[in-house]
């Protein structure tokens, strides 16, 4: 059953990737050996393991329904999942396997995903060119990450990972542009208001454009004050975009509120990052977690829940249980962002271990609650 549509398999393995990517952290921090290569490992797994699986599940499901092109199923889907798994295995055995082999195992997945998206560019309308461009940039970033490990290029690994997080935020902004009109309308219907909204494109374009600028600036000059101002501008642009979701009671529906929360995390993360670069005593790495653990993961949970609902033939509203995982992730993010500033001594327990447990609990709960939907046929009897 899980091989009939991309979201089913990738949303099933994604929570496992999420839990795996934080599993070694508490041991290291409590053992007193945090940082260094481990930081790059964790960052890479969250970005190119966890977020990449989310992107795959989303694109393999959304592109066929937007453009009408044929979905990837069966053997091709199995091959995609195998490529993704190969990369994860490579990284779990990092240190045992030689770096070139880890690179080889990890570099197959994203290009394969891009190859499945390219046919949609030939369609007449709603061409996903922005997704393809960002995906190509992510492939280049992952390649650079491995080339650095192999000693071929000299560029700091965290610089690549930070730019990759920015690129995923660009994807969040772009995807929200396609998802929000649908979810806001459904939320308005749920609260008994007429669903006649019009979202002018200016706000989402500004939000995505400032994030693109931010990604480029972080790669070119991560510590320049220019990057700091760009981060602040990007924060303002995301805050401006939250206006799109100001619809009274409809904002309190999960399909809108979760995106609102994600945007709030983006504002906090980008704003804090900008201020940190401009010289305020804020921890930049904590702000990265506001972006990754706060904004990106909340968006991932929102999209996964909505896709799992709609593409298994179920109508809105979302079940109440949809709040649990984002709430746990939000709490984890608040701790990871707050503890380094309020009580740096407590980092090992309250800044890393407890957030890692909350994070794992969130994705464990999501899997427990939504896996039955993903493994069962559509309730309306349609294929897919």
């Amino acid at each position: 059953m899980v091989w009939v549509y991309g979201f089913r398999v990738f949303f099933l393995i994604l929570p496992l990737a999420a839990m795996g990517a934080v599993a070694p952290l508490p041991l290291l921090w409590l053992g007193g050996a945090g940082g260094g290569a481990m930081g790059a490992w964790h960052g890479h797994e969250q970005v190119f393991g966890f977020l990449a699986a989310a992107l795959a599940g989303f694109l393999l499901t959304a592109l066929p329904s937007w453009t009408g092109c044929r979905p990837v199923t069966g053997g091709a889907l199995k091959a995609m999942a195998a490529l993704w798994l190969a990369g994860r295995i490579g990284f779990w055995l990092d240190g045992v396997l030689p770096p070139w082999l880890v690179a080889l195992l990890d570099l197959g997945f994203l290009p394969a995903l891009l190859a499945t998206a390219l046919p949609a560019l030939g369609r007449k309308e709603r061409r996903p060119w922005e997704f393809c461009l960002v995906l190509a940039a992510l492939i280049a970033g992952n390649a650079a990450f491995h080339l650095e490990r192999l000693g071929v290029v000299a560029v700091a690994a965290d610089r690549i990972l930070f730019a990759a997080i920015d690129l995923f935020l660009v994807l969040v902004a772009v995807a929200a542009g396609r998802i929000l009109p649908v979810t806001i309308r459904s939320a308005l219907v749920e609260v008994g208001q007429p669903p006649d909204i019009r979202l002018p494109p200016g706000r989402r374009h500004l939000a995505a454009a400032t994030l693109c600028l931010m990604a480029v600036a972080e790669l070119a000059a991560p510590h320049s004050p220019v990057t700091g101002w760009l981060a602040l501008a990007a924060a303002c642009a995301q805050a401006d975009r939250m206006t799109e979701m100001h619809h009274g009671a409809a904002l309190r529906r999960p399909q809108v509120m979760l995106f609102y929360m994600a945007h709030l995390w983006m504002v906090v993360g980008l704003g804090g990052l900008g201020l940190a670069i401009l010289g305020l005593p804020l921890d930049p790495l904590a702000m990265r977690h506001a972006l990754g653990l706060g904004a990106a993961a909340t968006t991932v949970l929102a999209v996964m829940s909505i896709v799992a609902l709609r593409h298994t033939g179920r109508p809105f509203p979302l079940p109440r249980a949809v709040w649990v995982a984002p709430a746990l992730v939000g709490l984890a993010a608040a701790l990871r962002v707050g503890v380094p500033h309020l009580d740096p001594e407590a980092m090992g327990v309250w800044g890393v271990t407890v957030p890692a447990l909350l994070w794992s609990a969130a994705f464990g709960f999501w899997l427990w609650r939504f896996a039955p939907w993903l493994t069962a046929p559509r309730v309306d009897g349609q294929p897919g």
Partner: protein
Amino acid sequence: MSRSRAARILDYVWGGWGAGASLLLLTALWEAGHGAYGTLVLPAPRDTFAALWTMSEAGKVLPAVLETSRNALGGFLAATLAGGVLGAAAGASDMMRRLLQPIATLLLGIPAIAWVVLSLLWFGGTGLAVMFTVLITTAPIVFAGTAQGVRTLDGSLRRMALAFRVPAPVLLWDVYLPHMLSYLFPALAAGLALSWKVTVMAELLSGAGGIGDGLASARVQVDTVKAMAWVLAVVGLLLAVEYLLLEPVRRHLQVWRREMPGTGAAGTGGF
């Protein structure tokens, strides 16, 4: 879909984020310019903000801002009064229009800088010279707007109101004023924007105090940071007037546009 006043105000204030994004992008460009050309050409934004802060703490900025505002608003009010009365006369009477229009055109053609020189000769380096310059440069704009508004008043609408025995105050308030405002407001907004710039220029040349005077002393000291800080003070003043005064009024006057069917709130909120 009509929305509550509080929601509209929230939308408006929240729209400030969009303006913030735009201004911060400009600041990033400014910072890049500083990196490329150095402090003497373009001081760093943070240094400029710091200089403005130091100058405010030393008690230099607020008096200057108040002085400049007094000069600008004094001149602007006088211009509104003179331009409004003469413009109304020109709009109502054909003879007055023939008499005044060429004079207004002539005044509009004289460069503001020439008025600064003349008023310095007439009034000396005082606030009066600055206010006179503002008056003479902005009055023709108000004049033109008022004359146009009065001339295009709808005669048949007036006759209908009279036929229904509408009392004079209601006639003024509900029939004449809304029509007049649609002509007068753009003229007033343009006049107000112009009056700040003319004020700073006149102050700079006359040494009559205010922001322009601060700019002049920064120029003498070849202190680019201080000069930029004063520019920042003017810009802050302009932005405050624009977004706290003019834009809300503009929106209020355009309520009919927002209430048109088929336009959701998300389409109009913000700047």
